[in-house]
């Protein structure tokens, strides 16, 4: 499936998952901000509409997460996420150093992409954190807020709903930061639009990252 410079990186199921996830997360971020900073005099999005959209997008992203989770569990895609803990700090430093200095000196990336390596160590850490910590945390707290009667009423001095909502909003915020950085990092390379094209057609051009 790969030509000389092109690797088939993103199978169809992954692209479908990624597309739905991207759309869902964008809706969740905008409606989430609108709900968090709701104001009777100014609506980013109408409150009721924001609630409905947030709920629908939340359920959609949660169900879609199952596709990501089981897709990675049964296909070989999981190998790209394997993180070597040995030398992780050194590898991360190398990657940061490339992004902050090496790439401006036209140095070669320390972890060039290949059929065996889809993500550099920084990407791995980011993707693992987001997809196996933040998003499941958001799904869990989001479902709890959708069925608030399931939440413990009082945890020491705090309202259970308050704690769940703060955790939900904080994780949501971290995912929004990830999205901004993710979109920017995707534009890094000779051709800024190249990676965006890859996630649509599945092929990644490894010539000149």
């Amino acid at each position, binding site marked *: 499936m790969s030509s000389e410079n092109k690797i088939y990186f993103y199978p169809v199921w992954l692209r479908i998952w990624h597309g739905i996830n991207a759309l869902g997360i964008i809706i969740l971020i905008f409606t989430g901000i609108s709900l968090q900073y709701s*104001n009777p005099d100014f609506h980013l999005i109408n*409150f009721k509409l924001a609630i409905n959209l947030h709920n629908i997008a939340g359920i959609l992203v949660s169900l879609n997460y199952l596709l990501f989770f089981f897709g990675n569990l049964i296909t070989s895609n999981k190998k790209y996420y394997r993180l070597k803990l040995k030398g992780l700090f050194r590898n991360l430093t190398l990657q940061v150093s490339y992004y902050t200095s090496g790439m401006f000196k036209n140095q070669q990336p320390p972890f060039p992409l290949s059929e065996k390596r889809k993500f550099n160590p920084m990407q791995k850490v980011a993707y693992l954190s987001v997809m196996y910590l933040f998003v499941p945390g958001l799904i869990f707290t989001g479902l709890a807020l959708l069925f608030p*009667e399931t939440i413990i009423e*009082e945890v020491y001095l705090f309202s259970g709903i308050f704690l769940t*909502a703060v955790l939900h909003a904080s994780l949501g915020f971290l995912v929004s930061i990830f999205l901004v*950085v993710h979109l920017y990092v995707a534009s890094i390379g000779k051709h800024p639009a190249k990676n965006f094209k890859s996630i649509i057609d599945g092929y990644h051009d490894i010539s000149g990252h």
Partner: protein
Amino acid sequence: MLESDIRTPAFLFNSRAMRSYFQLILFIFSICSISGIKAQDKPMVPENELCLKCHTNQTFTFQNTLTDTEDKRMMNPLYIMNKDHFSSGVHGKFKCTDCHSSEYDTYPHNAELKLEPLSTCLDCHGGDEQYAAYQFEKIDEEFQKSVHFQKSGESFTCSKCHDQHYYQAKSRTSSKVSEIVGFSNEMCMSCHRNNNKFHLISDENKPELSKIHDWLPNQELHFRNVRCIECHTQVVDSLSVSHNILPKEQALRNCVECHSKNSMLIASLYKYENLQNRTSEGKLNTIIANKSYVIGAYQNPWLNNISILIFLMALAGIGIHLIFRIIKK
């Protein structure tokens, strides 16, 4: 025989000591029982004991003068008092005859006494400096605008909501929002969940609450945590609790009025709560240890600022990187 038994030399010898001993026990017992009484369980005035001897029981006995027999009857459930609730209420220290006719002292009671008009709340509370802070006249003014007064007139007395026997000023005394909400909503529910009482003021059956509120998400959570009056009254700044109950068409149906930073709940439900917490526990604690979270209303200022800072730093990082990319291209 009995007398001679008691007057034994030993008893006589010990009578003074025994009396002191009993007095001591009585004293200790009274101290214990006083300390065992919670602040709210005020002891009732002794004059009420005679009334409550019958009016706390399911049955009563009287001498039927027509048949010359002693008859035992069931007590009308409406006339059975809960002694504990009465003594915890705002009028717990009152004598029954402070409000009811003193002729009730005779038994069996004269049936016509029931027809006597009772004192109204304002007879005592109106124009009295001691109660000036509670603004009973203002409450009455607001109440007269309410749908209850508009539909039922004078027959809708204060006691329809505020049971004179058991009423507690929870919105002023309780520090638990859930308790304030529960007590307040129970006043509405006593009629709006009970057709028998509802028929006192309306010929129609009461509307099904869950049905008329079907637009409201998480109904049960709202009913448990929000007072009915939050949406069904016109908030008046000077009053702790608004009494102008609006017609259903004017009830608040705008979620954002509560779910926003300037939530109207802060002007109503949490008005007193906030004041109390701020004075006794400090503002910081009110923000952190908030047990009554409302989505959108309680934005934690610390988290808000930190998140804005992180977001700006991320944007700045991206901006700087982008500039270098353009320069070094």
